[in-house]
């Protein structure tokens, strides 16, 4: 989805009427002046964003003298006359524009009385308010109807049950309903069916993928085997998203965990997975790029603000200052990524828990002049902060002490176990001497270190700790000595087998080098060091609490954006069009909501429900609006189309192309090839496996997106706030020629119970399209079956528009 947006066009000018400040003057100031004389900067103390501030003037006094344009400094500046500095500095305004301002002053420099409410405030920065809705009316239908009535639009009739159940099922699970699901559905069961679908694990997989679009999920990528972006094991975060949705975790809690689970639940590995959200922005070569990405996408995804515009300068449209960009960055400045060990795996490259933590609470943030990291403003270190214009209160970071078992990983049973398992494995591996005794001693040393760790890190520390440490040091040194002796013994043993004179010489040299090492290791036992190297590095014992404070601020009652932005995303994915078209920009340069009262009603309700996402689905899906037909003909429809060709007022449902994943998953579902296993590491593509997993479980990263999904506009892994929907011939070829489609068609054909064309056709229609064929359709298909096998018909029906469309 492109970031390109519509601009509201300034009110046209008419010569006869008096000049209207709000409609004619303010837009001029906004366009040419407020970037220096506005909310974020006030050069010479002058603000030109509101009429009353224009009249108030600058530090040097008024700039406007009512009825006397020739005495008004504003006019002098605009014309660059009478010694005034010519404004704006980028070049003089055209004469007509200056003339309107002159006329406005001449006519008395009137400004609107209720200006502050009417113009200065931007809707998205005001708290949403819930307008009353009459009893017995669904709020969504109520607000939509207000607009229909105003415009003379007639709402579409309701979809038939077959269409509705397919719509609901695809919408909530990304899988088509089975023939039995369709047959058992009656319109009056809608609420019950919605509940059942929301309870299905497939719901989390479907909506998890939606959220992963917005949160820009990507498995690691780089150059060959070199990791440059994102992180290993990020699928843990993907699984957390899916599970969170399925378990009904409130949205505010999801935000808290993604931004700060390491501070809020430091010992809960399940919750820690959520911080994969932050780990995803990792970039090997440049910490600034890494943090810029976090700032940009946290702003866009959770708040619908383009804070990224402020990296180099104050925001040109919104009251966001450049300094606020860097204060926002300061929230993330201390954090780093580490991979915690998980039970049963000692190699973190193979498996581990990728999570964030505050590594350096003293990390300093500076503003970069013009965004140039070579020009930090070093005399002004910035404390963490949030944009005040959105909500000035509620951001109060406090350092948080971390529990002992987070600081000292060996206090955790799983970590201890992994250490012991690894050492025991060595004993099994080296069954013969001299290595066996090294491994046996190594295991003892590991156990001793674990015991010493447990004692020294206990609260209060165990008095025996010092002894245990000494003991562990002793065993460690003994292991080292045994290892050195083993090296030597093996080298001497090897020498016996060597015949070649040159090689003998070389081996002797090696032995000569190993001998002193044994002595050194033995000597070390006599003068042991005070402490041993830890088995697992210890972690910082506190965290700054900045990210927790950010999460609290985002979901605080005073924050006007978080709920609105999320509700808008959910709406988009139920209706095929958002209420605010610029889904990641609710600022002044974004486009206004089509139904502001509805958006606000839903946002308030969502917060009231304790950010219950499933409740939000139920609310939207229970509206009449959701159940309308998507395609209609007749005079009403024709009249509507003339009034609102793009259906902006939602007088009918929009037919929606299925997303890439849902198309592939549908193929699997109808053919029985679907392996319903959930979760786990990202998979390699393999169209030949006996059963295939749902699409979201396959590797998803730049240059690594499955080609089948690519053909259908899969989410771009670097940014995808809204899917593109193209129709290109390559999609047809993917459904006709791919191995996947061929396999699915074979499996469908194999599973047919009907034998006769007259029965095969309805069976395929029920299975693949969830409906009966019409007369002409049945006729065409039966005709086709005279010269073609059922498998060819099955595959043809995968290409039916109804297969890949939510009607």
């Amino acid at each position, binding site marked *: 989805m492109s970031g390109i947006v519509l601009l509201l066009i300034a009110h046209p000018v008419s010569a006869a009427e008096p000049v209207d400040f709000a409609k004619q003057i303010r837009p001029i100031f906004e366009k040419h002046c407020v970037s220096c004389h506005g909310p974020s900067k006030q050069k010479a103390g002058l603000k030109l964003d509101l009429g009353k501030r224009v009249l108030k003037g600058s530090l040097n006094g008024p700039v406007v003298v009512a009825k006397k344009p020739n005495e008004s400094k504003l006019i002098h500046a605009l014309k660059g006359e009478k010694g005034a500095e010519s404004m704006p500095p980028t070049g003089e305004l055209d004469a007509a524009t200056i003339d309107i301002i002159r006329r406005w002053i001449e006519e008395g420099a009137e400004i609107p009385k209720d200006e502050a409410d009417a113009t200065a405030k931007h809707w998205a920065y005001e708290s949403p308010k819930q307008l009353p809705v009459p009893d017995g009316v669904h709020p969504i239908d109520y607000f939509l109807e207000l607009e229909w009535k105003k415009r003379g639009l007639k709402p579409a009739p309701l979809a038939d049950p077959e269409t509705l159940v397919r719509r609901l099922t695809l919408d909530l699970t990304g899988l088509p309903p089975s023939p039995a699901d369709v047959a058992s559905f009656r319109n009056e069961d809608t609420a019950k069916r919605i509940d059942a679908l929301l309870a299905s694990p497939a719901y989390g997989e479907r909506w998890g993928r939606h959220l992963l679009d917005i949160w820009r999920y990507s498995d690691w990528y780089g150059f060959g085997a070199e990791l440059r972006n994102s992180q290993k094991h990020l699928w843990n975060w993907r699984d957390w998203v899916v599970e969170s949705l399925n378990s009904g975790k409130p949205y505010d809690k999801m935000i808290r965990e993604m931004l700060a689970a390491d501070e809020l639940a430091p010992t809960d590995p399940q919750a820690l997975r959520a911080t994969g959200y932050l780990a995803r922005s990792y970039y090997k070569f440049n910490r600034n790029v890494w943090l810029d990405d976090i700032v940009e996408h946290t702003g866009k995804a959770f708040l619908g603000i383009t804070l990224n515009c402020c990296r180099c300068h104050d925001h040109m449209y919104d009251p966001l200052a450049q300094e606020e960009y860097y204060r926002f960055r300061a929230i993330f400045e201390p954090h780093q990524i580490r991979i915690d060990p998980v039970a049963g795996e000692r190699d973190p490259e193979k498996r581990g828990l990728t999570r964030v933590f505050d590594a350096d609470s003293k990390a300093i943030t500076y503003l970069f002049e013009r965004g140039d990291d070579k020009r930090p403003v070093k005399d002004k270190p910035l404390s963490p902060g949030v944009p005040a214009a959105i909500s000035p209160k509620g951001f109060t970071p406090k350092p948080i002490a971390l529990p002992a078992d987070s600081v000292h990983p060996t206090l955790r049973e799983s970590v201890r176990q992994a250490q012991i398992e690894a050492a025991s494995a060595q004993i099994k591996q080296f069954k013969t001497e001299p290595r066996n005794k090294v491994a046996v001693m190594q295991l003892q040393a590991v156990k001793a270190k674990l015991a010493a760790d447990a004692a020294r890190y206990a609260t209060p520390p165990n008095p025996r700790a010092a002894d245990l440490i000494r003991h562990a040091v002793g065993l460690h040194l003994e292991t080292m000595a045994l290892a050195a002796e083993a090296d030597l013994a093996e080298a001497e043993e090897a020498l016996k087998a060597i015949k070649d004179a040159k090689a003998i010489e070389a081996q002797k040299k090696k032995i000569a080098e190993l001998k002193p090492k044994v002595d050194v290791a033995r000597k070390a036992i006599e003068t042991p060091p005070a402490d041993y190297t830890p088995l697992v590095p210890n972690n910082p014992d506190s965290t700054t609490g900045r990210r927790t404070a950010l999460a609290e601020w985002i979901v605080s009652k005073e924050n006007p954006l978080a709920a609105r932005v999320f509700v808008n995303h959910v709406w988009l994915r139920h209706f095929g069009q958002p209420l605010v078209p610029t889904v990641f920009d609710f600022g002044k340069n974004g486009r206004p909501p089509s139904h502001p009262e509805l958006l606000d009603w839903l946002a308030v309700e969502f917060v009231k429900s304790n950010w219950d996402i499933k409740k939000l689905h139920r609310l939207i899906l229970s509206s009449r609006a959701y159940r309308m037909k998507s395609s209609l003909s007749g005079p009403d429809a024709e009249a509507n189309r003339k009034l609102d060709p793009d259906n902006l007022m939602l007088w009918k449902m929009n037919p929606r192309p299925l997303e890439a994943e849902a198309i592939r998953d549908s193929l699997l579902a109808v053919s029985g090839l679907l392996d319903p296993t959930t979760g786990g590491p990202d998979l390699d593509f393999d169209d030949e496996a006996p059963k295939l997993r749902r699409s979201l479980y396959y590797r998803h990263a730049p240059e690594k997106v499955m080609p089948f999904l690519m053909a259908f506009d899969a989410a771009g892994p670097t940014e995808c706030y809204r899917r593109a929907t193209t129709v290109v011939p390559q999609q047809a070829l993917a459904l006709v020629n791919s191995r996947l489609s061929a396999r699915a068609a074979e499996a469908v054909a194999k599973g047919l119970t009907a034998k006769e064309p007259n029965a095969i056709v309805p069976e395929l229609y029920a299975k693949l399209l969830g409906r009966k064929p019409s007369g002409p359709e049945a006729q065409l298909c039966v005709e086709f079956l005279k010269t073609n096998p059922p498998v060819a018909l099955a595959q043809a029906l995968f290409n039916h*528009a109804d297969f890949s469309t939510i009607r």
Partner: protein
Amino acid sequence: MQTPDRRSFLASGMGFAGLALSAMLQRDGVARADEEKWTAPDGKPHFSPKIKRVIWLFMVGGTSHVEGFDPKPMLDKYNGMTIAESPFKATLDSPYLKKNLREFVPGLHKVQPKLMKMQAGWKKYGKSGLAVSDWWPHVGGIADDIAVVRSMWTSDNDHGAQLQFHTGRHALEGPFPTIGSWIRYGLGSLNDDLPSFVVLGKPLADCCGGQFGHGGNYLGPEYSGVPLLADPKNSLPFLPMKGQSVEKQLEQFQLIGKLNGLAAEQTPDDMNIRAKIKSYELAFKMQAAVPEVMKLEQEKADVRKMYGLDQPETKEFGQLCLAARRLSEKGVRFVQVYHGSNGGAGAWDSHAEILKNHPPLCKQVDQPIAALVQDLKQRGLLDETLVVWGSEFGRTPGAEGSAGRDHHPYGFSIWMAGGGVKKGVVHGATDELGFHAVEDRHYVTDLHATVLQLLGLDPRKLVLPGRKRLEIDFGKPMSAILT
């Protein structure tokens, strides 16, 4: 896999869906005009065309005009001086400075006041004596075949101008149908086996138009450009499997077409289904035709060499240009070729050191582009083809930082070569500094109008009921350079 010829294909019923659909659309009023006079395009030109097809080469990021096709000796003379100190102070008082500009981010790109000398030498080429920078020697070599327009302007000083170059509308107004999609909409196909609007090279980044840069927008997705890979080894994903019977697959495609035709009757509101039906008709034929057309290895060694396929710098864009010629030769109406798309503003965006940025990029494209024009000429195709070269804007005569050039929408160059266009001419001019287009000024839609004129299309007849086109959308043909 063989493709049955068009006649047998239509006779076998593949065309059914299209016919049924258009009849249905008329009946249900989808395509009925708001204005009584409106009729859907019949695929024929409105008047006698000079050319049949267009190859549109677009350099992403903003290519310097003063180090391109509009050298400015005054920059050398007043190097280091501010515009205000130079004899051309009046440049800053020009009404064009504000009047035509609508900033995407106000104040971000200021006038760069300190003049910077040309970073490349230049000389006169050919009989026409066309002045071309040393960074474009091969294009210099075809000077007598091209018409340079030095007086283009646009209204966005940021990279939304990429979208604007193709739609004619400022990016702040959102996406609109692009020039290629209007042509696709107005003119019938010359080859039913290939898309009639093809996109080669990496598309624009989302910041600057993304897919909308070759989109059909309200005309519907079937009028959008179809991206193809100019990779002989992998021109299309999902080709038919070995052993697949063409006849059997054709039957399957025909059934799909008919079924979707019936579905379209039921769902007149679904813009995508119309596009889908078309895409299947095309897909069937494309799966044989595209790999064939992308067999660049079929070209003779000297031709491949001419396009620079033997050199690492020129290979990639050379392949695109050669593929563009082959597609064009086969009748693709509009081939839109991108160069320099990099996921952001574009490779040509040389804010810091233009001397390091431009020469390697020019090296990548200069030879292949010149080869394309020459190759078309030697095959006798240039008379019925138009090659357009352009970029979203030029670069500032003043320095950005010490050695860069900023975005410059006030005056920049494009050039054309082909049927109906004068050869070896320069049209329009910028001022002495290369700042403002001052003679025969042309907004980007004048370029669209010129292309449409050559194709025999009247932009005012390219309208859709319910969709308002503005005066600025239509532009005016650059008649001075037309034969």
